[in-house]
């Protein structure tokens, strides 16, 4: 069953149209991450789902109901904000129970839910403190707790971890994932511009750019078969290598050619077989380049070596192209060494040079 359905939604700030007929379906129990650079409209979409922003056209359905004109509190949602947004003059307990008190829930039920959520997030010992007596990580836990007690079917997160330091971010990320598993049927929509969060948390990622959806798919799909140049470049660190070239025919087989480098494309799964002569961009992830003596692309020299512990990123160049290669951290390499690169056509991506779309 679809938990959240955004149908042909348009949103405008005065004269500025942000979305124009955007649609998105999210299944019950799914963890969907909205990923994109700053200003692409992630928060706007989330606020529209929450009912904090009016849509100018289209409908929003939650749990089989058209909630387009419903108040936020009537939509069965809970929300966690980047800035925590805890009520400064209330204790943690009062913060968490505020929504329930507004809904006139019986006192015993409020206590039960607060205790349960506090247990789950390990903040029981903080219940009587005020927000200004908490650390950033504790504040965000409380904010998540406040969302939990609402017993909502849909949880909305707007960059909940981006105000925290790296270590805390990792901890809470794992915790959110555990929470999702534990809550079972809860649907989560999570906004971030951090691709690690997106890859690790999501069942499905929605990649956005300039208020348009670029690709929707599982993390593996997004990473392995990016649908255009933007997605390919945005996801993955170090970045995917791009080489400009053209398609050439060898008999009835196709090959990629850039300068003196060639790559037969027999193993490549074209979505729509293009004609030879087309200008294309070849994309290959650093870990899919095999450095060695017997590669198909010879004549590269090592430029810079970046050891990262588990693996090492090697920048190599042949004068025109610069390629990043990811190799094992134990392998000994030194700048100046010559090598040739091995590529597997099954693992590369090809994009049309003019439109940027995947071929």
């Amino acid at each position, binding site marked *: 069953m679809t938990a959240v359905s955004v149908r042909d939604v348009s949103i405008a700030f005065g004269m500025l149209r942000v979305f124009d007929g955007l649609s998105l379906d999210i299944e019950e129990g799914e963890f969907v991450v909205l990923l994109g650079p700053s200003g692409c409209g992630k928060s706007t979409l989330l606020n529209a789902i929450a009912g*904090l922003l009016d849509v100018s056209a289209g409908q929003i359905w939650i749990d089989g109901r058209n909630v387009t004109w419903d108040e936020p509190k009537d939509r069965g*949602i809970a929300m966690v904000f980047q800035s*925590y947004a805890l009520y400064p*003059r209330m204790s943690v307990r009062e913060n968490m129970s505020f929504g329930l008190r507004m809904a006139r829930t019986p006192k015993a039920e409020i206590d039960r839910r607060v205790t349960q959520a506090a247990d789950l997030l390990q903040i029981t010992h903080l219940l009587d403190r005020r927000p200004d007596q908490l650390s950033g990580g504790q504040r965000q836990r409380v904010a998540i707790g*406040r969302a939990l007690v609402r017993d909502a079917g849909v949880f909305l997160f707007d960059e909940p971890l981006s105000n925290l330091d790296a270590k805390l971010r990792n901890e809470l990320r794992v915790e959110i994932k555990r929470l999702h598993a534990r809550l079972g049927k809860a649907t989560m929509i999570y906004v971030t511009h951090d691709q690690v969060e997106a890859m690790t948390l999501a069942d499905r990622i929605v990649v956005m750019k300039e208020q348009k959806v670029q690709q929707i798919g599982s993390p593996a799909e997004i990473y392995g078969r990016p649908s255009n140049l933007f997605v390919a470049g945005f996801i993955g660190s170090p970045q995917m290598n791009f080489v400009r070239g053209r398609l050439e025919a060898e008999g009835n087989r196709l090959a990629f050619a850039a300068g003196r480098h060639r790559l037969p494309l027999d193993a490549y799964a074209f979505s729509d077989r293009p004609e030879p002569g087309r200008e294309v961009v070849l994309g290959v992830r650093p870990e899919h380049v095999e450095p060695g003596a017997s590669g198909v692309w010879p004549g590269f020299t090592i430029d810079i070596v970046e050891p990262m512990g588990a693996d090492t990123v090697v920048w190599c160049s042949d004068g025109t192209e610069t390629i990043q290669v990811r190799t094992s951290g134990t392998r000994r390499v030194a700048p100046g060494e010559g090598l040739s690169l091995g590529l597997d056509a099954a693992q590369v991506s090809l994009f049309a040079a003019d439109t940027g779309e995947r071929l």
Partner: protein
Amino acid sequence: MRSRSGGSTEPQGRRPRRITAGRIGLYAFLLTAALFFLLPLWIMLVTSLKPMEEIRLGNIVALPAALTFEAWGKAWSSACTGLACDGISVGFWNSVRILVPSVILSIALGAVNGYALSLWRIRGANLLFGILLMGAFIPYQVFLYPLVRIFSAVGVYNSLSCIVIVHAIFGLPTMTLLFRNYYAGIPADLFKAARVDGGGFWTIFLRVILPMSTPMLVVATILQVTGIWNDFILGLTFAGRENLPMTVQLNNIVHSTQGERAYNVDMAATMLAALVPLAVYFVSGRWFVRGIAAGAVKG
């Protein structure tokens, strides 16, 4: 690199001198300025504590030789304002009766207005606010006559409620501006969270926003208490004969004396009239500065 442990390292060179010519000049200026502003207060105080014979000698800054509180008692309860000779106490209580509801009403209206304008993004909020601000810049003498006509037509002219409403109206632009700017500094997420939690217009205001407003409430109270207490023309015009505020009665005392002018009584009456704003400043000076600073940094 070497890291030092133990032992102390003296800063090098001579310590900068604490007292410089510039410092001395600065203190001299501050002292003179303080004296300049304190002198009238001093003269009023000593004059009010002297008997008339001593005042006639003309040494106005000297300490009283024969200390007496007679003038204060007279000013409070038996000085003549026109025909009645009940002192300024009547005016004092009138002023209190005007002050309390006016201050509460004007601050309440300003806070709700500022909250609605800054957080609820009402359609046309900016236009509304612009018009309100313009109201703050029009000299209020312009409004006097039309307001008198309106109030007489409605039948509340010359009453306590009339003067309270007038103070609330004239306080509205400043109070709204003050609270709107303060609330504009509150993170929008906080407000959104309260809406998701099911708060309505009034619950969010009363349970989330108002508890955060203490510094602004203090500033607004100080501004309104002093402003309304010191008001003369509005009280004279709208309050009616029964409710004339202290400022109007003070004026009557000072100007209605027959024969010799009782300077000591005049001074004592003036001091009594200034007591409330003075007390407010002394008690709340710290809060006032803090409130303005908080507004400035967060707003």
